[in-house]
């Protein structure tokens, strides 16, 4: 019996949720109000069956492979798996997505899941196949649904295209507080994207030092939200990190016209100007920042001091 139980415990991840939180927005509204086709299944997703406890690496590798990264579960395992926990922490799944140059976008709830699947985006889901006090944590990749037959289609464990009743799935997913993750190439926007969540996901790419992909993702963000201050600043900062001072200068110059009330753009403009030895212009920019004041006032003054110091040493 013990062996049977072990065999059944397909994959244990240390879930960090105790009990299920709110059910708000969790249940699906009537299918016609969702504005999605009654069924959809994403084809061409490679299937990697998992080995013992390795559902995290297998599912992440499938998501990455769908998004165009050539990889295998064995390749990504060192980036997600924590041997002592016999599982993969959610934060490691997010981080590994970024380390492979992909936007890791979190989603939550049945409506968002179905909308993303309808848009052709597979979703990594964390299920607790057991109970809140006897958890069996398991990652699957949701690849399709059929609202008429009320089923969800998952690449799960050793089974490709596992069909599971929507109700059973919803109960197992609820226990992770509906934790879902999209792994998207930087030119693709989530169907359910919210500006602040998307920007945070791209900042994560910056954190992982994937500047080229972060830059591309900020461009994607600006296509959807043309007036996003954060996406503009992020673009400039990516150019700067890539050593493209001209590119950065162009973005920051645009920003000080567009967002004249934001000191950070003036500060960063001053910095790239100073690095190009354009000191008079740099001084004018940083003085504008200091006039605006705000949360970064100390940084502005530091930038001003540095520009003055550079001018003194005659670094022309």
């Amino acid at each position: 019996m013990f062996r049977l139980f072990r065999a059944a415990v397909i994959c244990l991840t240390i879930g960090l949720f105790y009990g299920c939180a709110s059910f708000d927005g969790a249940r699906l509204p009537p299918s016609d109000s969702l504005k999605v086709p009654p069924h959809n299944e994403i084809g061409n997703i490679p299937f990697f069956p998992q080995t013992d406890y390795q559902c995290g690496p297998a599912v992440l590798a499938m998501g990455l492979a769908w998004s165009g990264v050539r990889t295998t579960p064995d390749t990504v395992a060192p980036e997600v798996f924590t041997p002592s926990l016999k599982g993969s922490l959610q934060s490691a799944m997010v981080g590994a997505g970024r380390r492979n140059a992909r936007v890791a976008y979190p989603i939550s709830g049945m409506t968002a899941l179905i909308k993303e699947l309808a848009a052709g985006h597979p979703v990594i889901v964390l299920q607790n196949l057991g109970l809140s006090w006897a958890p069996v944590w398991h990652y699957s990749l949701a690849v399709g649904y059929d609202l008429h037959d009320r089923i969800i289609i998952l690449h799960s464990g050793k089974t490709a295209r596992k069909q599971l009743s929507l109700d059973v799935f919803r109960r197992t997913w609820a226990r992770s507080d509906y934790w879902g993750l999209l792994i998207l190439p930087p030119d693709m926007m989530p169907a359910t994207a919210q500006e602040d969540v998307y920007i945070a996901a791209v900042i994560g790419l910056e954190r992982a030092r994937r500047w080229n992909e972060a830059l591309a993702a900020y461009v994607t963000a600006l296509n959807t939200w043309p007036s996003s201050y954060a996406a503009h600043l992020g673009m400039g900062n990516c150019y700067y990190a890539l050593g493209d001072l001209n590119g950065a200068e162009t973005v920051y110059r645009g920003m000080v016209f567009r967002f004249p009330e934001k000191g950070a753009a003036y500060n960063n403009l001053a910095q790239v100007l100073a690095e190009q030895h354009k000191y008079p212009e740099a001084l004018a920019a940083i003085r504008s920042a200091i006039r605006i004041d705000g949360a970064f006032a100390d940084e502005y003054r530091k930038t001003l001091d540095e520009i003055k110091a550079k001018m003194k040493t005659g670094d022309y």
Partner: protein
Amino acid sequence: MINMRSAKKLFIPVRIILVIAMLGLMGPHGGASAAIISTESAVQADQARSDIRKVLERAEIRDALMKQGLDAAEATQRVDSLTDAEAVRLANEIEKLPAGGNALVVAVVAATIVFLILLFTDIAGYTDIFPFVKK
């Protein structure tokens, strides 16, 4: 044998050195020097949390991941790929990680009970553990 408390004390200077080293490595995100204001700090609503505190938190997570058996380089990379908000969340979660080390007998008895309960809930359609239970 060194007990945990004195081992912790031993590590304090190591930690301080680590933090200083990390501050130096932080680059555009650190805020330790002036220069470029990062996208992340620009969108952060809560400016009260100091950069030093954030760096300390990241050092703590790194230590915790290393205690889970990851090597220093991998632990650093995992922490570095997270935003500040995600790092704070992970730091809180790591504290709750189960300690492990249960007695075998207790585990076998518990597993038997859990098996029976899960079998029942599987049949009722509340869980999805056993492939042989038709759903």
